C-alpha cells in the first residue's frame, strides 16, 4: 500500500497537471486549493483523504512510459485512471526516480497520518481525478516538509513571493505603455493586488537555506528578481498591459503546444536559454501577472507539482547551467504559466498574429492540456535564468525567441520523428522571418487605409488567398 502511495504521489503530480488541464476538476477550484496551500503551507496535511490514493496508480504507470509527455502518453494516462488497483505493481517499479523517492517519504508520512486513504481508493471513478487534483496540490509541499521540516515553508512561499514581487514591481514601474497600443490593464491588476500582500509577508520570513542548490538559487532569484523587476524597462509592463484578451487563449494554447515536447528537448533549451535569462525574467514577471489574472488555474496548478520535478531536473542539469538557471526555474514554477507568458509577451507586438495562432492552437488544448503542464516547466526552466539586468532591445529579442521556441516545439511534436537541432534552428529562423513578413504586411495594410491600428479588415485582406 505504501509503495503504491509512493508512486501515487509523484504520479499524481503529473497526473493532476493534465487532469486540471483537461478540466475534469469541478468540485474544488484549483484557485481555492492553491490559496489554501499557500496560506497553510507550513502546516502538515492538506491532503484530502479521498484523493490521496485514487488517481495515483493510473498516472504512475503512464509516467514511466511517457515522461516525454507526448500526446499519446497523455491519452494513455486517462484511461488508466479507471483501474487503480491493477497498477500497484507498476507503481513499485517506478519508485526509482528522485521525485518519487521524495514523494515516497512523504507518502509514508501521509500514510501514517491518513489510514483512511485506503478506502477511498476503491471508489475510483471519473470524479476521483478531480480529487487527485487536490492531492497534487498537497503532495508537492509535503515531501519537502517531511525531509526537512524547517524548509517546508520556503519553496511555496518563495514561489508566491516571486510572483507577487514581480507583479508589484511591474505595477509600480510600468504604467505608461510606450509604443505599443495595448488594452487596459484592469482585468489583470485586480487579482495581482490580492496576491501581492501575501507574498510580501512571506518574503521576509524566508531565511537563507542551503538545503538545495536549486532552492537556494530560487530564493536568490526571487530577491534579485524583485529589484530586477523594478529596474526593468517599461516594456514588460506594456506587454502585461496589452495582452488581456490573448493571455487566456495563449496561456492554454501555449501550454498545449509545449505538451508535445520531450524531456530531452526541454533540458537542451535550458542550457541554451541561460544566456537569455535576463530577458526571460522580465517577460515572465510580466506574464506571471497576466497568468494570475487570467486565472489559468490548470496551468498554475500544474506548476506546483512541476516544482519538484523541475528542482530535480535543474539539479541534474546544473553541471553546465549556471546556478541561477535552476533557481530561476524553480522560481518560475510558482509563476503559473510562465511558459505561456514569454510567448504572450513575444506575441504582444503582434496581437493579430497571436489571434491567428490562438485559432490555430485551438484544437491542441484539449488533448495537450495535461501534457502541457509538465512541459511548460521545462521551457520555463530554459528561459528562466534570471538576471535583473534590463536592456531595451535585448528583451525584445528574447521575447521573440521565447515565442518561437514554443512553435518550434510544436513543430517537432507534429513531426512525429526526431529532428536535428539544426533543422529546428532553421525552423525557428523561418518562423521568425515569416512572422516579421506577416506583420509588416499587416502594418502596410493598416497604413494603406490611413490607419495606425491594425484591424480585422487588415487580417482579412491578409488571408484573402
Amino acid at each position, binding site marked *: 500500500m505504501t509503495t503504491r502511495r509512493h508512486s501515487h504521489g509523484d504520479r499524481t503530480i503529473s497526473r493532476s497537471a493534465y487532469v486540471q488541464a483537461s478540466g475534469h476538476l469541478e468540485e474544488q477550484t484549483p484557485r481555492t486549493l492553491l490559496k489554501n496551500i499557500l496560506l497553510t503551507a507550513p502546516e502538515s496535511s492538506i491532503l484530502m483523504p479521498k484523493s490521496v490514493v485514487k488517481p495515483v496508480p493510473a498516472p504512475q504507470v503512464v509516467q514511466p512510459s511517457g515522461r516525454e509527455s507526448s500526446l499519446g502518453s497523455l491519452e494513455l494516462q486517462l484511461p488508466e485512471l479507471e483501474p487503480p488497483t491493477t497498477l500497484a505493481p507498476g507503481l513499485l517499479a517506478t519508485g526509482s526516480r528522485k521525485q518519487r523517492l521524495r514523494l515516497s517519504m512523504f507518502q509514508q508520512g501521509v500514510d501514517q497520518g491518513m489510514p483512511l486513504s485506503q478506502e477511498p481508493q476503491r471508489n475510483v471513478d471519473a470524479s476521483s481525478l478531480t480529487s487527485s487534483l487536490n492531492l497534487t496540490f498537497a503532495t508537492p509541499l509535503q515531501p519537502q516538509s517531511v525531509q526537512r521540516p524547517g524548509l517546508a515553508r520556503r519553496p511555496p512561499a518563495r514561489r508566491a513571493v516571486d510572483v507577487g514581487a514581480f507583479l508589484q514591481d511591474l505595477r509600480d514601474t510600468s504604467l505608461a505603455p510606450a509604443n505599443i497600443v495595448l488594452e487596459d490593464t484592469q482585468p489583470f491588476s485586480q487579482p495581482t493586488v490580492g496576491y501581492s500582500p501575501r507574498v510580501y509577508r512571506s518574503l521576509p520570513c524566508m531565511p537563507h537555506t542551503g538545503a538545495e542548490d536549486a532552492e537556494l538559487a530560487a530564493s536568490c532569484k526571487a530577491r534579485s528578481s524583485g529589484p530586477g523587476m523594478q529596474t526593468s524597462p517599461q516594456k514588460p509592463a506594456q506587454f502585461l498591459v496589452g495582452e488581456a484578451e490573448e493571455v487566456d487563449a495563449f496561456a492554454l494554447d501555449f501550454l498545449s503546444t509545449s505538451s508535445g515536447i520531450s524531456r530531452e528537448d526541454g533540458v537542451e533549451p535550458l542550457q541554451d536559454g541561460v544566456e537569455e535569462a535576463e530577458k526571460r525574467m522580465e517577460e515572465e514577471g510580466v506574464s506571471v501577472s497576466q497568468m494570475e489574472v487570467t486565472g489559468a488555474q490548470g496551468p498554475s496548478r500544474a506548476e506546483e507539482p512541476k516544482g519538484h520535478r523541475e528542482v530535480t531536473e535543474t539539479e541534474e542539469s546544473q553541471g553546465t547551467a549556471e546556478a541561477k538557471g535552476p533557481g530561476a526555474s524553480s522560481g518560475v514554477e510558482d509563476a503559473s504559466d510562465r511558459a505561456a507568458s514569454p510567448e504572450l509577451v513575444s506575441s504582444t507586438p503582434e496581437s493579430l498574429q497571436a489571434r491567428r495562432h490562438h485559432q490555430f492552437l485551438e484544437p491542441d488544448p484539449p488533448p495537450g492540456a495535461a501534457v502541457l503542464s509538465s512541459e511548460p516547466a521545462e521551457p520555463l526552466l530554459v528561459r528562466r535564468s534570471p538576471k535583473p539586468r534590463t536592456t531595451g532591445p535585448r528583451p525584445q529579442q528574447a521575447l521573440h525567441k521565447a515565442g518561437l521556441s514554443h512553435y518550434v516545439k510544436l513543430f517537432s511534436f507534429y513531426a512525429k520523428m526526431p529532428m536535428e537541432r539544426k533543422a529546428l534552428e532553421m525552423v525557428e529562423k523561418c518562423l521568425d522571418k515569416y512572422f516579421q513578413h506577416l506583420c509588416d504586411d499587416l502594418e*502596410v495594410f493598416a497604413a*494603406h*487605409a490611413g490607419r495606425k491600428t491594425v484591424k480585422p*479588415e487588415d487580417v482579412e*485582406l491578409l488571408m484573402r488567398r
Partner: protein
Amino acid sequence: MEEEAEAEEQQRFSYQQRLKAAVHYTVGCLCEEVALDKEMQFSRQTIAAISELTFRQCENFAKDLEMFARHARRTTINTEDVKLLARRSNSLLKYITDKSEEIAQINLERKSRKKKKSEDGNHNSRELAEAGVVESEK
C-alpha cells in the same frame, strides 16, 4: 435565358482566349529579346508556360488591386494600390515609385500650365484654343 447565359459564357471565354493570345504574343517577343541578349534559346513550351503564368498572375493582381482599393474605401484603383501590390520586390517598388513620381510631376506641370494660360487668356477664343492645345498635349 440559359442560352443567353451560355452565349455570354462563350463570348467571355473567347474574349479570354484572345487576351491570352495577346499575352502569349507579347511574352514571345520579350523572350526573343532576352534570347538575343543572352544568346540562349527559349523553347515553345517555356514561352507558353510563361504566358499562362503571366495571365494568371494578372488575374490575381487585378483581384488584389480591387481588394486594396476597397480596403481604402475607394472605388477607383489608385497608384497607391499598385505600389502596395509591388511591395514584395524592392527594386520593382522603387522603379514604380519613381515612375509614379515622374507622372505626378508631369500632371502637376500640365495643371500649372493650364492655370497660367487660363489666367492670361481673357478672350474666349484664345482660351478655347489653348484648352484644345492642352487637351491634345495630354
